[in-house]
């Protein structure tokens, strides 16, 4: 028996509303030798999580493992009774979930939860388990390994939580670790740290692992073997390099082909009339104090312009204020200082003072497609509302327009009668976009419109946006943390860090240095689709994002100060950085000059991978 894990003909079914059963995993077989990592890849909804969970003998509510066999070591998982399963889970096989934030019980300390597996299974005394946990914390490069266990989940950052979950999974020295999209919810800078930690632990402990992801570039860093899934069926299985370099199945090929976004043509000329102008904007959340400032200040002194028919990309890590910016423009968050001009006219910050026409002309496509569609309404009703509300279109005509809208976003017309809960994440995101399009706006604020889409569908949506811009002169604010996409579709780019615009310029400007040190970190953190990329990264990229509530640097100073690899002691921590205008109109908020920056930048002008195409396009 060479393989530690042996899966044969696994199939999982789900009960539908009418009592029948639909297969969501069909006849999947694979085996993993001891000490190896198998990656499961495929589009969203292809059954990756389902397979991963079945390795623990677990099926989510409504699902049932209908056939096949799973052997882990000596254990036939599917033959176990309840007691056997209790003994298996967390002891022999452990699980690391997609969202650590959701998988930690908010009411219990981290240590309680990390050692719980050991306590339940009696593999160690509590004291021994705690000692071991501290060891694991250190191995996972967590700060303050001794003290972190006493904290509650909300007191550590997302990336740290994800590593803490790895500790939780490893505490019982399981034979198999199942990692389900452990970094999808993280932004690129954090993702690197987590990937590094995982890789180190997996390597040091010689753990056998199943790694689930839809991100090919990530998989390339982690896996020895790749299993490609779509629609619950196995498409292909092979060694990582084989799959990435020599995909045989058509589906794998299309996945790889779409992995690097095709650049779209530029929008209107850059000197086109400004549609939206933001001047000296300060905004935030919470009660407004006596000085007119909100309790938590999220955006600080932002200047931006979006010309008619052009696209502004806004990038920045999670929490940098991208969504807040869009909300200010949409009127959902009032501006504390500064102004927002639409066609030269100030936009009322208060929703009730805006006219219906102003509402119509600015549409926002919300980030969380899961929560912005009313679960009680059908898709048709959701799309019909803006048609009726803005254009008075009802009945037959509305139905026709709804069908067209769905078609525009590449959704089947049959979807119209469904409720949002019956759609996949990617479908919801497109309905969300279609709703904004229904208003026939002049400006669309797109907040992460492609994040839940697999590469193929994502590309189609980007095409649609480019077409709108080209043919109807629609302007876009394109918010994303996916730099390659931004580079592909945006005319202008602004980089936010902690509410400050630290870097901005034309599309070409973010292809080559000089960058603001943060932009540099961000750009160089985007994983590349080749194995070994992670190992080749310089160590200084591992500068931690501060934990939530760690406190910002004193106001006025550079917000990136704590993490900046090139900060100048005595200057950066004393004086506010100047706003530098570099040649070509690029703006940077930094004490360093362009030349200084260019010299120390990680990202080189002739960077590998997808960026090369940008350059050729630009030249």
């Amino acid at each position, binding site marked *: 028996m060479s393989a530690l894990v042996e899966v044969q003909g696994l199939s999982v079914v789900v009960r539908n509303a009418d009592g029948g059963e639909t297969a969501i995993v069909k006849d999947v077989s694979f085996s993993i030798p001891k000490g190896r990592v198998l990656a499961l890849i495929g589009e969203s909804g292809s059954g990756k999580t389902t397979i991963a*969970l079945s390795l*623990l003998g*677990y099926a*989510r*509510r409504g699902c049932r493992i209908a056939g096949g066999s799973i052997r882990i070591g000596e254990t036939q998982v599917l033959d176990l009774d309840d007691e056997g*399963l*209790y*003994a*298996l*889970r*967390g*002891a022999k096989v*452990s*699980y690391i*979930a997609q*969202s650590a934030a*959701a*998988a*930690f*019980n*908010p*009411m*219990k300390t981290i240590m309680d939860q990390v050692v*719980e*597996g050991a306590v*339940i*299974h009696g593999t160690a005394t509590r004291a021994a388990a705690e000692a071991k946990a501290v060891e694991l914390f250190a191995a996972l490069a967590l700060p303050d390994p001794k003290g972190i266990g006493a904290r*509650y989940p*909300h*007191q550590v950052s997302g990336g740290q939580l994800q590593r803490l979950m790895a500790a*939780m999974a490893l505490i019982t020295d399981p034979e198999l670790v199942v990692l389900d999209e452990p970094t999808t919810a993280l932004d690129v800078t954090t993702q690197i740290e987590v990937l590094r930690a995982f890789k180190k632990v997996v390597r040091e402990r010689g753990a056998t692992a199943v790694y689930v992801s839809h991100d090919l570039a990530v998989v390339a860093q982690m896996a020895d073997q790749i299993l490609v899934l779509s629609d619950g069926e196995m498409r292909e299985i092979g060694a990582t390099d084989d799959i990435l370099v020599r995909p045989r199945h058509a589906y794998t090929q299309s996945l790889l082909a779409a992995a690097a976004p095709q650049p779209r043509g530029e929008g209107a000329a850059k000197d086109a009339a400004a549609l939206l102008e933001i001047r000296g904007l300060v905004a935030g959340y*919470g*009660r407004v*104090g006596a000085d007119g400032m909100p*309790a938590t200040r999220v955006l600080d002194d932002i200047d931006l312009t979006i010309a008619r028919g052009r696209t502004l990309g806004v990038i920045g890590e999670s929490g940098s204020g991208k969504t807040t910016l869009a909300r200010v423009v949409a009127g959902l968050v009032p501006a504390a200082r500064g102004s927002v001009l639409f066609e030269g006219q100030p936009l009322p910050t208060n929703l009730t003072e805006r006219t219906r026409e102003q509402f119509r002309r600015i549409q926002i496509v919300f980030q969380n497609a899961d929560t912005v569609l009313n679960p009680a309404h059908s898709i048709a009703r959701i799309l019909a509302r803006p048609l009726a509300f803005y254009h008075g279109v009802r009945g037959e005509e509305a139905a026709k327009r709804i069908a067209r809208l769905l078609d525009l976003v590449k959704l089947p017309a049959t979807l119209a009668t469904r409720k949002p809960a019956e759609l996949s994440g990617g479908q919801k995101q497109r309905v969300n976009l279609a709703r904004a399009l229904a208003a026939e706006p002049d400006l669309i604020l797109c907040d992460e419109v492609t994040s839940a889409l697999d590469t193929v569908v994502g590309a189609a949506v980007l095409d649609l946006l480019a077409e709108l811009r080209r043919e109807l002169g629609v302007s876009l604010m394109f918010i994303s943390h996916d730099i390659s996409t931004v580079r592909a579709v945006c005319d202008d780019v602004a980089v936010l860090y902690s509410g400050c615009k630290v870097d901005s310029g034309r599309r070409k400007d973010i292809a080559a240095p000089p960058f603001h040190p943060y932009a540099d970190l961000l750009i160089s953190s985007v994983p590349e689709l080749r194995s070994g990329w992670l190992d080749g990264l310089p160590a200084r990229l591992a500068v931690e994002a501060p934990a939530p509530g760690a406190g910002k640097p004193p106001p006025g100073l550079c917000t990136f100060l704590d993490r900046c690899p090139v900060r100048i002691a005595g200057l950066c921590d004393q004086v506010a950085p100047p706003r530098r205008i570099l040649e070509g109109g690029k703006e940077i908020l930094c004490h360093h000059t362009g030349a200084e920056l260019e010299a120390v930048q990680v990202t080189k002008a002739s960077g590998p991978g997808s960026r090369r195409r940008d350059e050729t396009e630009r030249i």
Partner: protein
Amino acid sequence: MAEARALASPRRFAVPARWRGTIAWLVANRLASGALTLVIVSMVIFVITGWLPGDAAQEALGQSATPETIAALRAQYGLDKPPHIRYLHWLQGLLTGNLGQSFTANLPVTELIAGRLPKSLLLAAVTAAVSVPIALTIGILSAMWRGRALDRALNLATLSMVAVPEFLVATIAVLVFAVKLQWLPALSNAVDVSTPAQFVRTYAMPVLTLCFVVIAQMARMTRAAVIDQLSASYVEMAVLKGARPARVALRHALPNAIGPIANAVALSLSYLLGGVVIVETIFNYPGLASLMVDAVTNRDMPMVQACAMIFCFAYLLLVLIADLVAILSNPRLRHR
């Protein structure tokens, strides 16, 4: 389910940034809005008693009233003054801690209440001490075995409990335990309670009856709150760590459901002061609820006012405590 969760969300307040979220602020804020509520209650009660036909003088004299004696009594009670003057006078007294003089008993309201309030509180406390654990157990068991036979049986049992009129439960209990079996006294005057055994004998039946009334709602809310948590992903995580159902429910889901459960408990318990007239009547228990009903019958304004304010205060206090429990149990809110 959402209902249970919703009850837990502490209200939003208009708070200066520095103070925001501190528990002291929450309490201060609640006390302020509670004071407002109490003023509203007192005004509404005052107006309503004005609408009630007859007044204290008429009720006191009943069949034998004559215009002369009525006028004399009215003057004695101060009912000859216009209502707003009376209200202001009453309010003034209240501010100095004086709840006024009961018309009918011609004693200070505080004195009458002092005799009853501890009894009411005791009955409520004993009932709470019995019913809350039972309700929580039922709720948690139902949630753990949701959709199974045990859940259905408990659901049916709790529903049947509320569906039987209170007076019937009480009367049957007396019939069985006091008259037939002679185990317990039929009355619960609670005047000569000195030994623990007497205490149990006195309180057994009133508490049993009240449990019938309050358990169902608490159990159903608890079940909903726990089920709500059982679908959370950290519960799935606990299952995947190999935790057994009992551990999952008690160690993982329950702590997270404390907020909504505390609120459900508070709502149910608030009933135990003012809503127990029938139990007090049938068991002859000298509590506040019957005092208030008497006062309404006798149009004993100062007394009605005082009782209503006490009930309102108790209600607000319970809700506040529930919110505090929710906050203190939640590290997110505790460690801001």
